[in-house]
């Protein structure tokens, strides 16, 4: 059972990444979007009123969140194109494995987008990210896990609706608020060279959301893909 779960998850993730690598549809859109958002944040602020460090954390997380959403949207759209998901669902593979595969594929996609966005962010806002980089990456990973997991589930839910691409952000954003607020708070502190230990409360919140979202989504996915 465990090997079947893992095999399914890896097969689904590898397939999704192969398709994305070949088409680069979501990737190109996400990167262009990320650059645009960073540029808008950079050029729209009044440097005499708002310092770079004040606006940088919010700009970073708005960029991460919305750029990633473009990829999440596509996660189940490609299953729906020729109803390929049906050919998966008629097999005996554990559906949890299908969901985990989708989450893994999305995590890999979002991680690449974030890794490309991060140096651009440092360039635009002239903020020092090298020293707090390990902690910043850890916080990013925690927040990303939360919104990718719930985003993947919602993507499966909305894909059969008429306005799937509009519905996903509408449904996802309320779930994102707590983890993203936590991530912004911690990022602001880290960029000001405060130690990670100062944010144990926010870190606990992020961890709680990770656990709750992953557990809830694993339980709900089966019902989501049922007719």
């Amino acid at each position, binding site marked *: 059972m465990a090997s079947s779960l893992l*095999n*399914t998850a890896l*097969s689904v993730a590898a*397939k999704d990444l*192969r*398709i994305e690598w*070949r*088409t680069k549809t979501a990737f190109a859109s996400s990167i262009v979007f990320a650059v645009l958002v960073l540029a808008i944040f950079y050029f729209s602020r009044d440097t005499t009123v708002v310092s770079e460090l004040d606006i940088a954390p919010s700009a970073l997380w708005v960029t991460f969140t919305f750029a990633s959403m473009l990829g999440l949207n596509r996660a189940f759209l*490609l299953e729906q*194109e*020729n*109803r*390929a998901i*049906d*050919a*998966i*669902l*008629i*097999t*005996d*593979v554990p559906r949890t494995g299908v969901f985990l595969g989708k989450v893994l594929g999305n995590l890999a996609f979002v991680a690449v987008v974030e890794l490309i966005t991060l140096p651009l962010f440092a360039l635009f806002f002239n903020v020092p990210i090298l020293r707090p980089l390990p902690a910043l990456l850890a916080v990013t990973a925690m927040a990303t896990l939360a919104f990718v997991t719930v985003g993947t589930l919602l993507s499966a839910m909305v894909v059969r609706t008429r306005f799937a691409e509009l519905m996903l952000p509408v449904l996802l954003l309320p779930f994102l608020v707590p983890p993203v607020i936590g991530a912004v708070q911690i990022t602001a502190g880290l960029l000001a060279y405060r130690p990670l230990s100062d944010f144990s409360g926010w870190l606990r919140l992020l961890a709680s959301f990770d656990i709750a979202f992953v557990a809830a989504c694993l339980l709900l996915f089966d019902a989501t893909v*049922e*007719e």
Partner: protein
Amino acid sequence: MNERVPQISTTIRLSVRGLNRRFGYRRVIRNLTLDVEAGSVLVLIGHNGAGKTTLIRLLAGLLKPTSGTVTREGSFGLVAHDSMFYDSLTAKENLRFFGNLVGSAESSRIEELLLVTGLTEHAERRVEAFSRGMVQRLTMARALLHDPELLLLDEPMTGLDDAATTTVQRLLADLASRNRSIVLATHHLPEVVHLATEVGFLVSGEMKALEPIGGRDSRALMDRYRELVQNG
């Protein structure tokens, strides 16, 4: 939920009891009961909207019955109305992915199926570049990856040229000769009638009659269908 699940004898591959399916207030499948034995080829005849596609999806477990039961014995494959492929992947990549899921992704098996469906030369081409007929043959290959005991097909001859039709007919005949069971929904009777052992006449979601083919040709079967429609 309280309905008894029928006991399946070893020769029955598919057993359907009191199957009903509604979409909203519309009853699409009405109180349908049938058994499919090992080695039998059941052809379901019905006009557009008779409920053929819904029935195949119910038999495959892609739709839940409103009431009634569908019990399958052993593995099954499905050739549905949609291709169920990823257009950006090649034929071979698609087969390997689905083969992985059904535990049958050996290269030799994939090569063999590409050969029998006449797609060896196109194995490395993306599915998006395939014609309708090629996609349909690839769909057959995918359905046969794990050599299923039961094959469900929804209009498998749609969009096929003569050569491709012959290929699919040959594959189906081979399956039937190996004691596999086939349920095939179509309104292209002439291409499949010679394979059939039984015929089910589906009218407005109701199985009006389920009869042995009895040597009848497609014209005789269509006459019988019209008779059943007229008799209501």
